[in-house]
C-alpha cells in the first residue's frame, strides 16, 4: 500500500520538476534531502492515500460483464456505487478490495435518477470504511483524489489513485438520456476514466467527498479530458436511508417551475395546485428564498438543491409573496409515478452485450455524438467490451452463491426486498420495546378479551379542558370537555383526516395500536420507506409506512432511540395528513408528555398527557348517543377546515 502511495507521489513530484532538480543538484551518492515543509506535505499525502485506499471497492460483474468501482461506508459491508455499474449485474456482483480478497456482493437499493446504488459485501463484519466528509464545505481549488478501478485495471485488486483539484462545486449536469441527473455535483480534474464509475472521490485528508460517476467527453473519445463529475456525498447522505430500504427510490419535485429574474431571485412561474407547496401558500410570482437550509438565488441553485432530495421528504422552505416572507415546511412529491420510474429504468438498462462475432465499433471518434449532450459514463457500453470479447453466450448464466441468495428477495418496486424486511423487523422490535408496549405486558390478541387504550389529559389552552381518548379495536372516541367525538366506522377515519378534524388523532393512535399488536405483516401492506427529516429537522428519522384501507400511515422514529416521534395519517393524497407529534421529556421510552395534532404547519389540538393505559375494552365508556363527528367537530376547527378548502380540487391544473 505504502509503496503504491509513494510511487504515486513521486510521479507527481516528477511533474513538478523536482526530480530533475534533485538530479542536477546532488551527486548520485548523496541522499536526497527535502525541505521539511515539502516532506510534511508529502507524508501527509501518503497518509491520506493510505487511509483512503482500504475502503475502495472494485466491482466486477460476474461472467465478465464489465464492472466499475465502489466505496465501503460501513463495517458490515454496505458500499455505495453507481446504479449504472450495478445495473448490468442485476442483484449479484463480485467485489475486490485492496486487502486482496474478493467478496460476494448483493444489491441493496438503487436510485436510478441519482445514479446511486447501495450494495452489500458479504462475509465480514469489520470491513474498512470510508469516513464521510462534508461536500458542502468543499471549494473549487481543493486538492482531491479519485480511487478506483479505471479500465478495470485492478485485476490484482489494487485500486488506482489519481490526484487533482476540484474544478467546480455545485455543478448541474443535465440528464443524460431519460433518467440520470447530476445536481449539485463536484467537478474534478483528477483523472476519471471508464471504470472509475461508482468509486470514491476523497478530499486531501482522505475523507469521502462523493461518488464519481460521469465525465465530459466529446470528440476525444471515452478517456479523461480533465473533467470528471462526482455525486456529492451530502446528496448520498440524504439517500442512504432510502437505499437501505431495498427499494427503487425516486427523487423529489416541488411541483412547480421556476425561473431566475433578470435582477436575481427565483420566482415561481408555474405551480401544481395539488402540490404541498401550493397548500403552504406558494403561488405564481412567489420568490423562493431558501430551501432545506440553503439559500437559492437562481433557478439553477434551486434545481441543484432539489436534485439532492428524495421523494416524499418534507423540508424547510422560505419564500416571499406579496411583500411578506413566509417560513414554512413543504412536502416533496416524486419526480415519477412508481410505474413510470420502473418503465424508464427498464429503458435505461443496457442492451444485451454484443456477441463476440459482431464487429466492434469502439473507435470513439467514429461514433456519431451529439456535441450538446455530454456523454454519460456508460460502462456497460465500453468498459464491458474488453472483457466480453471471446466469450460465448451474450449473458452467461451466473450461479448465485447461497449466501447471496440468503439475502435476496425479489419483489416489484424493490431492488431487494430482503433489506426492507430486515428494517421492518427492527422497526417493530423498537415499537414493542417502547411505551406503551413496555408499560403493560403485551397481551396476545384474543377474541375473548379485547384490549384498548385509555388516555387522559388536558388541553394546553387556558382554561385547560379535560381530555379523554379511548381507542378500542373497532371504536374510538375523543372527549374534550363536554364534547365527544366518536368513530365506529373505518370510512369516518378518512373523513376526519380530510376535514382536518381534531378527531384525526384517533386514526393515528388506532394505527399505532394495531401495528403494535399485529406487526407489519398483518397490519396491511407495510414497508420501510427510508429516512427523512422531521419537521424539516435532522437527524433523519426512520420512516415506516403502513397502508390501512384508504389511509396511509407513517411512523417517524428517532434513528438512535427508535422512539416514535410522529405518526402521519394521509387520507387524500392532495390534502394535508393528520400529524400526531409525540413529545417526551427526557427518557425516550417514557410516556409522551404531550401529544400534538397538526395539519399543515398548524397545531390543531395539543394535549398534556396525564395517563395512558391499556385496559380491557369492556371497561371503556361510550356515549349513549353517538354524535356525528363531522358536525359536532366543525365549529371548533374553522382554521383547519379553512386550510383544506383549496385542496378539494383534485384537478392538477398548472397555474
Amino acid at each position, binding site marked *: 500500500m505504502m509503496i503504491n502511495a509513494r510511487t504515486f507521489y513521486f510521479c507527481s513530484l516528477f*511533474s*513538478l*520538476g*523536482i526530480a*530533475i*532538480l534533485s538530479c542536477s543538484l546532488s551527486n548520485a551518492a548523496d541522499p536526497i534531502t527535502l*525541505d521539511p*515543509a*515539502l516532506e*510534511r*506535505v508529502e507524508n*501527509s*499525502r501518503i497518509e*491520506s492515500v493510505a487511509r483512503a485506499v482500504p475502503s475502495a471497492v472494485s466491482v466486477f460483474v460476474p461472467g465478465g460483464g464489465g464492472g466499475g468501482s465502489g466505496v465501503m461506508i460501513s463495517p458490515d459491508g454496505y458500499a455505495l456505487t453507481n446504479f449504472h455499474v450495478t445495473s448490468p449485474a442485476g442483484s449479484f456482483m463480485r467485489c475486490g478490495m485492496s486487502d486482496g480478497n474478493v467478496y460476494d456482493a448483493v444489491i441493496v437499493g438503487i436510485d436510478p435518477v441519482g445514479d446511486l446504488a447501495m450494495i452489500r459485501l458479504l462475509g465480514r463484519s469489520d470491513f474498512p470504511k470510508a469516513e464521510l466528509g462534508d461536500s458542502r464545505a468543499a*471549494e*473549487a*481549488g*481543493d*486538492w482531491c483524489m479519485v480511487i478506483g478501478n479505471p479500465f478495470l485495471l485492478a485485476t490484482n485488486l489494487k485500486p488506482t489513485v489519481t490526484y*487533482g*483539484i476540484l*474544478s*467546480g462545486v*455545485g*455543478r*448541474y*449536469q443535465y440528464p443524460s438520456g431519460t433518467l440520470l441527473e447530476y445536481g449539485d455535483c463536484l*467537478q474534478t*480534474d483528477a483523472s476519471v476514466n471508464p471504470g472509475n464509475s461508482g468509486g470514491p472521490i476523497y478530499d*486531501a*485528508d482522505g475523507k469521502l467527498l462523493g461518488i464519481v460517476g460521469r465525465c*465530459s467527453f*466529446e*470528440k*476525444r473519445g471515452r478517456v*479523461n*479530458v*480533465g*473533467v470528471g463529475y462526482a455525486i456529492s456525498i451530502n446528496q448520498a447522505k440524504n439517500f442512504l436511508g432510502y437505499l437501505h430500504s431495498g427499494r427503487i427510490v425516486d427523487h423529489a419535485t416541488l411541483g412547480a417551475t421556476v425561473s*431566475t429574474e433578470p435582477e*436575481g431571485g427565483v420566482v415561481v412561474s408555474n405551480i401544481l395546485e395539488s402540490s404541498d407547496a401550493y397548500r403552504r401558500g406558494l403561488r405564481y410570482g412567489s420568490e423562493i428564498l431558501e430551501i432545506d437550509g440553503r439559500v437559492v*438565488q*437562481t433557478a*439553477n441553485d434551486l434545481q441543484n438543491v432539489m436534485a439532492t432530495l428524495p421523494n416524499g421528504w418534507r423540508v424547510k422552505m422560505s419564500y416571499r409573496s406579496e411583500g411578506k416572507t413566509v417560513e414554512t415546511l413543504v412536502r416533496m412529491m416524486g419526480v415519477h409515478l412508481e410505474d413510470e420510474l420502473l418503465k424508464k429504468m427498464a429503458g435505461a438498462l443496457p442492451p444485451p452485450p454484443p456477441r463476440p462475432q459482431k464487429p466492434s465499433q469502439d473507435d470513439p471518434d467514429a461514433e456519431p455524438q451529439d*456535441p450538446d449532450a*455530454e456523454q454519460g459514463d456508460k460502462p456497460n457500453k465500453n468498459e464491458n467490451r474488453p472483457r466480453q470479447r471471446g466469450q460465448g453466450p451474450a449473458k452467461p448464466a451466473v450461479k448465485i452463491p447461497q449466501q447471496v441468495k440468503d439475502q435476496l428477495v425479489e419483489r416489484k418496486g424493490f431492488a431487494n426486498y430482503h433489506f426492507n424486511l430486515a428494517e421492518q423487523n427492527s422497526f417493530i422490535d423498537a415499537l414493542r420495546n417502547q411505551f406503551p408496549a413496555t408499560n403493560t405486558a403485551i397481551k396476545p390478541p384474543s377474541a375473548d378479551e379485547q384490549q384498548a387504550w385509555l388516555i387522559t389529559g388536558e388541553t394546553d389552552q387556558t382554561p385547560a379542558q379535560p381530555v379523554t381518548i379511548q381507542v378500542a379495536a373497532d371504536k374510538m372516541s375523543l372527549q374534550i370537555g363536554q364534547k365527544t367525538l366518536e368513530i365506529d366506522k373505518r370510512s369516518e377515519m378518512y373523513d376526519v383526516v380530510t376535514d382536518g378534524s381534531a378527531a384525526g388523532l384517533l386514526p393515528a393512535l388506532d394505527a399505532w395500536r394495531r401495528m403494535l399488536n399485529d406487526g407489519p405483516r398483518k397490519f396491511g401492506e407495510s414497508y420501510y420507506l427510508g429516512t427523512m427529516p422531521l419537521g424539516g429537522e435532522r437527524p433523519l428519522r426512520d420512516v415506516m409506512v403502513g397502508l390501512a384501507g384508504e389511509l396511509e400511515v407513517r411512523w417517524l422514529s428517532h434513528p438512535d432511540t427508535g422512539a416514535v416521534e410522529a405518526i402521519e395519517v394521509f387520507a387524500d393524497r392532495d390534502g394535508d395528513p393528520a400529524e400526531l407529534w409525540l413529545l417526551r421529556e427526557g427518557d425516550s421510552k417514557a410516556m409522551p408528555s404531550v401529544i400534538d395534532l397538526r395539519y399543515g404547519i398548524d397545531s390543531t389540538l395539543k394535549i398534556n398527557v396525564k395517563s395512558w393505559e391499556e385496559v380491557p375494552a369492556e371497561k371503556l365508556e361510550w356515549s349513549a348517543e353517538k354524535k356525528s363527528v363531522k358536525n359536532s367537530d366543525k365549529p371548533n376547527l374553522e382554521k383547519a377546515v379553512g386550510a383544506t378548502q383549496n385542496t378539494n380540487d383534485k384537478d392538477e391544473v398548472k397555474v
Partner: protein
Amino acid sequence: MNRLAAITLTVLFAASISDLPAEAPLGTWVRDAQKRVVKIYGAGGLKGLEAYQSGFLVSPEGHIATAWSYVLDVEPVVLLDDGRRFESKIVGFEPSLELAVLKIEATDTPFFELNEEPTVDWGDPVIAVSNLFNIATGNEPASVMQGTVASVTDLNARRGTFKTPYRGKVLILDLIANNPGAAGGAVIDSDGQLAGMLGKELRDSTTGVWLNYAVPADALRTTIGDIIAGRKSTVIDSATAMLPRKDSHNPNALGLVMVPDVLETTPAYIDTVSTDSPAARASLRPDDLILLVNGQRVDSQRTLRSLLRTIDRRDNVELTVQRDTQILPVTLQP
C-alpha cells in the same frame, strides 16, 4: 522563475501555513482568478462548433482578452463571474496572435495585469481557469484545473503539424486544459499572476494528439496595451468620409475578384486575382482571406468595399490577409 523558486512556490501553495497538516486548498487565490474570467457566447452551435468560449478581464474598464475565433463572428455576449450579462464590442484583434479584445460597458471590473517578462518557465505549477464545455452557467464560477508548464517552445518547430497562424513561444501544459470552450481562458502562476491565455484547440495533424498550450502573457502584452489605449483599434472609423466613387479604391481596380457575395456577411475571400494588377504584384492568391484594411477589421465583403471607398485611389492600401495558417501583411500599390 527558476526551478528552485517553483518548488518553493509549490510548497507555498500546497502548505501556505507551514504547520498545516495537509495541503492547503488553493482557495482564495483560485477564487480571485475566477472573478477575472468571463464566459463568452457568440456564433456557432452547429455540429462540432461550440457557440461559447472563455476570456479574461484586462482592464478596470471592462476590456476582455479572448481567443480570435468564429465565436466572435457576431457581437458576443459576455457573462461576468457575478452573473452580470453584457453585450460586447470587438475593439481590436490581432490575427497573428489569435487574440481579440472585447469591451463591455462596465467599470471597476477586477482584472489581470500583463507582465512584460515571462512569469513562468517549464516545471512551474499553474492553474487554468476557463469555461470548458460550458459547464459553468450564469453566476457559476469558471472551472479551474491544475498542472505544470511542461515546456516553453515554438509551435512551428515542426512545420505544419499544428494548424495555427501563431508563430511565437507557447507554454505547453501537462493538464488537459484546451477543451471545447476553453479558448481564451486564463493560465495563472503560483503568484496569482497571469501567465498566459489558453489557445484554441489544436490537434497534431498526423498523430491526432490534442495539444494543451497557452500563449504567454508577455507575448500578448503590447498588443493588448495598444488596443486598450486605442493605438491599435480595428474598429472602423465611421468619421472618415466616403470619397466619390471615381476618387477611391475599389476591389476591381486593385485586381481583387472576391467570392460571390451571397450572404449578409460573406467573408472577404479572394476568388481570383487579375493579372498585372496591384493585387497580383503583391502576390495575393485565391483563397486568401482579407482580415484588415489599413488596420480596420473586415468582417464582410460589404465592409471591404466601404473601407476601400474611404481611401484615395492614389494611396497605398495596407492589407492583412490570412493564407492557410499564415498571417501576412500586404501592401497594395496603385
